[in-house]
């Protein structure tokens, strides 16, 4: 895109500041987004991206600063004003009424009068037009909950376009998409750009920025550290701008030296409370000294797999640890007995499962191991011993601040994860179950966490890694299993496969393995 200097920017923010109590979420941020471009905003969690967009969409009021839309100074006190100014937002978590049809969702809040029929007819017409114009095909009468995630996202985009949005903000749009769906999304975004729409793409994935944006702004700790042309930068350069120091994007690891089989799973089935079968006969094995990565779009049974292995959920089938059968029914086992078997579990959701957010760091260090005799003293818990243990673990895992008396909720995502990792890894387990190890973790800590996982493998431990980030799966895994709809679609050698093949498998398509 070439932009003549005479063109007014679609959005211009001047000196935006916003504080929440003592936390300065946005500091004096200025940014110009030119019309007809895709502008990326990248930054770590907590860098202030979402706050900035919430100000633009009228959810928060900036303490200081001005907003110009197409050169006109604009006040955006609420989302109604944002919509009126031509701004549409596609949230990370969709705001759709699941049991409404696509049409009903689209007119929701934009009905023309008390009777629905004329609005629905009008929406149907404009939906047809929009579909033709931007290649956004969706069946207007489909019920939203029956649509795939990718299509639901299209409905969100259509909602914004129906409201005459010229500026689209997308917040982490690919988090829930398969690679193929993500590609489709980016094709749509390109089409929208060609038609003159302006797009702001918020993401923490460097690759998406490099592939799709024209310009990229980097945020760090509430400040806009740089705005550069995408063509003039590189992933490593952006990572450095995000973190403020050089970052290793590749994990250094030697080829695996797999030993004896530690975990064997045969025909594992899990049915959830609603009677839906979530795992449909999983079989896999993990050997000592290797990392088995489970790739897949969120919600295809990976969580249930971790839970049943970790003793949280029950199921049927066979689980063997070091050749011995363990209880799958949940009647004779729980998280405690799994730990006694040498299974450590870093859960996917550390805030709901892995940690008690209101517990202090030292209380969390005992969590799950609180029946360990070393932590007892008569009928009481030996709190002093736990605190000392915590101090040592915090030092070895570089948890900051190294204060055992701070509540878990007061640590950053990366440091929370380090508390969990320290607790689980230092137990010297035979098998480590680890889900989404770096979700919500800043890039600096990702490096450290990946190193810890690889070094545990090098000590001859078996590791089962579940991640929805394909990059992470590729970086860490020695073998990759792809899950779709509660089943394993296949196991691949990471050096002999690529994103395209895995992406197809994640969508349920299996190609014959090349002989």
């Amino acid at each position, binding site marked *: 895109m070439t932009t003549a200097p005479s063109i007014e920017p679609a959005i211009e923010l001047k000196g935006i500041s916003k504080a929440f109590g003592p936390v300065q979420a946005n500091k004096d941020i200025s940014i110009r987004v030119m019309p007809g471009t895709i502008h990326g905003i990248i930054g770590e969690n907590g860098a202030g991206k979402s706050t900035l967009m919430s100000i633009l969409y009228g959810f928060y009021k900036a303490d200081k600063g001005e907003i110009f839309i197409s050169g006109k100074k604009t006040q955006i006190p609420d989302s109604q004003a944002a919509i009126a100014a031509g701004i549409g937002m596609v949230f990370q978590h969709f705001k759709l009424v699941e049991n409404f049809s696509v049409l009903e969702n689209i007119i929701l809040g934009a009905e023309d009068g008390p009777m629905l029929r004329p609005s629905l007819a009008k929406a149907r017409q404009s939906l047809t037009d929009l579909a033709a114009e931007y290649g956004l095909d969706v069946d207007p009468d489909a019920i939203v909950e029956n649509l795939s995630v990718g299509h639901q996202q299209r409905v969100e985009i259509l909602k914004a376009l129906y409201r005459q949005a010229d500026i689209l903000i997308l917040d982490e749009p690919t988090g829930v998409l398969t690679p193929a769906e993500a590609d489709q999304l980016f094709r749509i975004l390109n089409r929208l750009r060609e038609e003159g729409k302006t797009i702001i793409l918020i993401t923490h994935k460097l690759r998406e920025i490099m592939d799709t944006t024209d310009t990229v702004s980097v945020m760090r700790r509430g400040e806009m550290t740089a705005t550069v042309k995408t063509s003039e930068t590189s992933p490593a350069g952006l990572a450095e701008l995000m973190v403020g120091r050089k970052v290793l994007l590749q994990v250094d690891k030697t080829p695996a030296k797999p030993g004896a089989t530690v975990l064997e799973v045969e025909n594992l089935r899990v049915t959830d409370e609603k009677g839906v079968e979530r795992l449909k006969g999983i079989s896999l094995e993990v050997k000592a000294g290797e990392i088995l990565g489970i790739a897949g779009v969120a919600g295809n049974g990976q969580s249930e797999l971790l839970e049943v292995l970790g003793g949280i959920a029950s199921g049927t089938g066979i689980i063997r640890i070091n050749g011995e059968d363990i209880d799958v029914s949940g009647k004779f086992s729980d998280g405690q007995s799994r730990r006694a078997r040498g299974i450590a579990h870093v859960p996917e959701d550390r805030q709901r*499962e892995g940690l*008690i957010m209101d517990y202090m760091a030292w209380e969390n260090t005992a969590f799950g191991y609180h029946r360990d005799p070393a932590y007892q003293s008569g009928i009481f818990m030996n709190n002093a011993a736990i605190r000392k243990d915590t101090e040592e673990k915090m030092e070895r895992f570089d948890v900051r601040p190294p204060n055992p008396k701070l509540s878990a909720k007061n640590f950053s995502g990366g440091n929370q994860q380090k508390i969990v990792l320290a607790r689980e890894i230092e137990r010297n387990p035979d098998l480590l179950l680890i889900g989404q190890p770096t979700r919500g973790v800043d890039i600096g800590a990702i490096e450290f966490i990946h190193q810890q996982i690889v070094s545990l493998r090098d000590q001859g431990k078996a590791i089962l890694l579940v991640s929805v980030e394909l990059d992470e799966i590729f970086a860490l895994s020695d073998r990759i299993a792809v899950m779709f709809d509660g089943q394993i679609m296949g196991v691949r050698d990471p050096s002999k496969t690529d994103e395209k093949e895995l992406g197809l498998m994640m969508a349920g398509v299996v190609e014959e393995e090349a002989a």
Partner: protein
Amino acid sequence: MEKMPAWADAVLVPLISLLLAAILSALVILGIGEDPVAAVKMMVSGSLGSTYGWGYTLYYATNFMFTGLAVSVAFHARMFNIGGEGQAMLGGLGVAVICLYMPWPHWSLALIFATLSSAVFGAAWAFLPAYLQAKRGSHIVITTIMFNFIAAALLNYLLVNVMRPAGAMDPATAKFPEATHLPTLHDMLAPFGIAFSKAAPANVSLLVAMLACVAVYFLIWRTRLGYEIRAFGHSESGAKYAGISPVKITVIAMLISGGLAGMMAINNVMGESERLIMNSTEGAGFIGIAVALMGRSHPLGVFLAAILFGFLYQGGAELALWTSIPRELIVVIQALVILFTGALDNMVRIPLEKLFLMFRKGDA
């Protein structure tokens, strides 16, 4: 970063809430044409101005300590035990059974067994709601409220048809034997040369209640069970991950809670009326909720809040007795205190947190 220092959370918030309740109460008293200053004087002198007043204040406080602790323990497991009233009634039955049907050589032995028995009866009354909650998901608030009614009906039946001595007119058991009468504060303080009112009902149960406060503190913050109860209360999914059984913790926490509520009976049944009568609990089970809320479910807070509510109860009774302020207004004042300290907690807390944040920003 914590939003405000712990002392402000524990002391300042309840004090300001109390002050607001007091101001509103004063306005109400003014509204009916009475003098709020004189009313306060009357309340203070009536409840704290004499050993007689103190004796009543502490007697009520003892009840509230037990029920407040009961609600607190359940709160730590994120359960709302509204059944303290019914559990305390059943505790009374436990005391009566021990005192009436067994011979006791000395009150101290009788006290120990009555305490155990009341706890067992109270816990048993909490068991079914706990079990239904844990296994069937029946909401504990609903079931415990219903169990209050069942307890009242059961006691009514037993007192009228089974335990009432032949020929007696009122639905109550016979007087407990002399050997089970507990020493009052008058009896206990006399050897130290302190003249405490003979008529006041405060008795040795106060010490048991204080011991219970200490025991609950250690239980919640020092034992593994307390650790598991709190973990479960903060996050059920977290508890499952750690291998803490939600069913087990729900039942155990409610048994402890019911047991504590039941133990109240050693004060009102064994210590004061010395027989089991209808409605002996006088709503103490419900006051326990307010006490636990105000005391932040911490035993020390419960102890202090219980004394405050003891003061309100005794002061209110005096007010009703000696002034033309109607009895209903006393209930209004007590309700205001409960409203402000319990229900409207955030009304004070959130502005206060903002204030502290502003000051901190000023420092930075």
